[in-house]
C-alpha cells in the first residue's frame, strides 16, 4: 500500500514536472512607480497598526491604579491622499481598555470589599476619522506627519474581574470572579485623537470626551487622557 502511494506521488510529480524558462526580469509599465497608486505616501495606502497607551493620572485622588490604566488596540488604516501634503483617513480598530482599581480601606466601588487584584475592562470596536498633514515629503515614505481625528468606540463587552487568594483548603492558589455586562458602563464612547509620526512610528494621544461611566457612577469616572506609542505594520 505504502509503496503504491509513493509510486503514485512520484508519477504525479513526473507528470506535472515543467522546466520553466527562468524569468530574470519582468516589468509591466502599467505597474510602474509613476502609475502606482498604492503604498506609503501614494494616493491610497492601507496598513495595519498596533497602538499601546497609558492613561495619564488625573489631579486629586483616583480609585484607579496609575500604572495599570491601559489602551491596547490593533487596527486597519485606510489613507486617501487628496493633496500633496494632506491625507484623509479612516481607522477601524479593535481592542481593550483596562483600569485596575486600587485596593484601599476607603474603597467603595464597585463594592467595599478589598481583593488581591480588581480590574474593569471593556472590549471595543472603534471607528476613527482623521486628517493628516505630511510635514516632510518623501517619495514612497511618510516622513514626518501629524494626525488630528475624532473617534467613536462601541462597547462590545465589559468585565469586572476580581482575583483573590484561594482558601488554603482549596486546591488552587487563586480564585477569580468575573462579572460580565457591567450595567454602570456606557455602551458608547467618543473623543479626539492626535498622532505625531515618523514613518511607521508615532506618539499617540487620545482624549475621551464622553463619559465611560453612566451618570449614576460619575464619581468614579476613569482618566480621560492617554498617551502611547503606535507602530505601523507595513
Amino acid at each position: 500500500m505504502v509503496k503504491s502511494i509513493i509510486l503514485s506521488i512520484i508519477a504525479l510529480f513526473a507528470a506535472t514536472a515543467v522546466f520553466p524558462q527562468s524569468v530574470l526580469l519582468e516589468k509591466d509599465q502599467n505597474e510602474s512607480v509613476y502609475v502606482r497608486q498604492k503604498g506609503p505616501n501614494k494616493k491610497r495606502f492601507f496598513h495595519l497598526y498596533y497602538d499601546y497607551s497609558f492613561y495619564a493620572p488625573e489631579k486629586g485622588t483616583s480609585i484607579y491604579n496609575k500604572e495599570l490604566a491601559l489602551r491596547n488596540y490593533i487596527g486597519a488604516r485606510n489613507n486617501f491622499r487628496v493633496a500633496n501634503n494632506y491625507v484623509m483617513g479612516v481607522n477601524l480598530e479593535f481592542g481593550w481598555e483596562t483600569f485596575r482599581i486600587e485596593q484601599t480601606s476607603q474603597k467603595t466601588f464597585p463594592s467595599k470589599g478589598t481583593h488581591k487584584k480588581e480590574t474593569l475592562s471593556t472590549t471595543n470596536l472603534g471607528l476613527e476619522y482623521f486628517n493628516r498633514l505630511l510635514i516632510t515629503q518623501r517619495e514612497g515614505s511618510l516622513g514626518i506627519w501629524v494626525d488630528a481625528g475624532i473617534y467613536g468606540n462601541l462597547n462590545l463587552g465589559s468585565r469586572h474581574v476580581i482575583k483573590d487568594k484561594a482558601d488554603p483548603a482549596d486546591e488552587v492558589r487563586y480564585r477569580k470572579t468575573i462579572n460580565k455586562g457591567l450595567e454602570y458602563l456606557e455602551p458608547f464612547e467618543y473623543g479626539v485623537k492626535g498622532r505625531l509620526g515618523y514613518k511607521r512610528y508615532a506618539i499617540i494621544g487620545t482624549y475621551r470626551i464622553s463619559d465611560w461611566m453612566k451618570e449614576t457612577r460619575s464619581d468614579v469616572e476613569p482618566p480621560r487622557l492617554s498617551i502611547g506609542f503606535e507602530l505601523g505594520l507595513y
Partner: protein
Amino acid sequence: MVEIKMISLKKAVKLSFLTVLLFSSALTINAQEKYWIYFKNKTKPSENPQEYLSSNALQRRVAARSAICDSTDWPVDSTSISRIKATGATAGYPSRWLNAVAVTANKETIARIKAMPFVKSVEPMQYFAAKQASLRNESPKADPELLEAQIKSMQGQEFIKRGINGKGIRIAVFDGGFPGVDTNPVFEHLRENHQIIKTYDFVKKTEFVYGYMTHGSAVLSCIAGIYGDKNIGLATGAEFLLARTEIKPEIKVEEEYWMAAMEWADQNGADIISSSLGYTDKRYTVKQMNGRSTLVTRAATMAAKKGMLVINAMGNDGRENWEVMGAPADADSVLSIGGIDPFTGYHINFSSFGPTADYRLKPNICAPGAAIVASSAAVKKGYGTSYSTPLVSGFAACVWQLNREKSNMEIFSIMEKSGHLYPYFDYAHGYGIPQASYFFKEKSPVDDTQNPVKINSTTEGIDISVSDLSKAEEKYLNYLYYHIQQPDGSLKYYAVLDVTQNDVVTLPFSKFKKGDLLRVYYKGYIREMNF
C-alpha cells in the same frame, strides 16, 4: 555669604521651557539661509567672446558645432553683485548660466534685496541630499577576473591594442575628494604625463583636492586607472579636471558648488563631464524626474548645449521605493548609465530603472556595476552605478578620440548604437553594453538566415521560440530579451529570460494593441513583429 534659593521642580521645568522657546525664537529671527538671486538683465561685455570665454571653451564649441556664445556665457553684472553685498548678504559663487548669484542672508536682508530694481526673483536654495551612486566597497583586494571582465564586457581590449586611450579629450570629474590620486601607483601615468590639468575645491576654495572622500579616486580610476599592467579604465591618455563639490556622502550638498563646477568645467574646456551623483527622494518626487523640473537637470542640459558630453549614473535605487533614476540622469541630453553584472551582462539588482516620468528611455546604455577601483593607497572591489559611469566615460573618450569631428550629441547617439542589444532596448539595460568592435566595423552584417529566433502567431497567442540552445562563452548572449513597444516609442512591457527550452514563451493576444511592436533579442539577433 551666598544664599541659595530652592525652586520647585515645576518652576524649573517652566523656566527651562521658556529659555528654550526664547533661544529658538532668536535663532529663527537671525537664521541665515541660502538663496539664488536672479538678475533681470546682463550686458554683453564685448563683441569678442575671447574676452570672456576661455580659448578651451571656444575651441570645444567650434568642434561641437554648438553656438559660439550667447547671453548665458556673459559674466554676471559685477555692479549688481556689489550692491547685493552692500546689504550685508554674503555672496557665494555667481552663475553665468542662471544669471544669478548664490547668497547667504537672513529674511530681512532678503526682503530688501527682493525690492531692488535689478533683481528678477529670489529663490531659496535647494539643499540637495546627493546620493553617491556607489553602494559598498570591499576590503582592499585585487580580483583579476573582475578586472578583466570590466574591460572585456565593453570589448575595451579593442581600444587598448590599437593604442586608443582618450588622448586629446578632457574629462571633468565632480566628486567629494580625490585622496591618493597624488600618490597611488594606479594614477602614476597621469602624474608623470601631467594629465591632471586643473583642480579646484569648491567647498574650501583652494586647489587642493587630494583628500576627503575616496569615492572620487575610485571613480577616476574607472576612467583612467592602471593596476600593474592592466587597465582599470580605458581613458588612460585623457586630460582631467578634478572638482571637489561635495562635503560628505549622503548629506545635504549645496547646488551652488555643482553649478559653479559645471561652469568651471565649461570654462576650462571639458569635453566630457563624468558625474556619479544623483538627487532623489530628499527633495523631489518621482514625477519630477521628467527632464525639466530639477535645477541640476536643467544645468546638465545647458552643459550639453555648450558641447559637453554629460555622462551620469542612474543611481542604486532599483530595490528601493524610489526605484527610478535620480536627477540629472533624467535629462534628455545626459547619457545615463545603468549597472550590469560584468559576468552575466544582465541588470545588477540595485541599478535604478527607467524610464523618465515622461516615458523617455533611461538608462541609455549600461556597464559593469561591480568593478575593481582605486582606494587611497591600493585597489578594492566596489559596487554601484558610480563605477559603471566612469567606465563608460573612459570608453566615450576613446570613441571621441576616434571621431574627433563629431559633436557631443553625435557621440551620444553612436554610443547608444554600439550597445550590444541595439536596436532592442529596455528600462533596465538601455541599449546594452557599448561594444568597441562597433567602431572598427568588425561587427559583421548579421546573416538573418541564421537567426535562431522565431515569432509565430498561433490560436493561443504569440509564440516565441528559439532553435539554438547552445551556451555561448559570454553568458549574456544566452539570455533572451523581449519588449512590447507602443506606437509612441515607449515600452509597455519587457522581460529577460534565461532560455532552457526551444519554446520560450507564449504571449496572450490581450497583451497587444494595434500599432504595438514585439521585439526579441537573442544571441546577437533581433526578430520583430508588428501588430
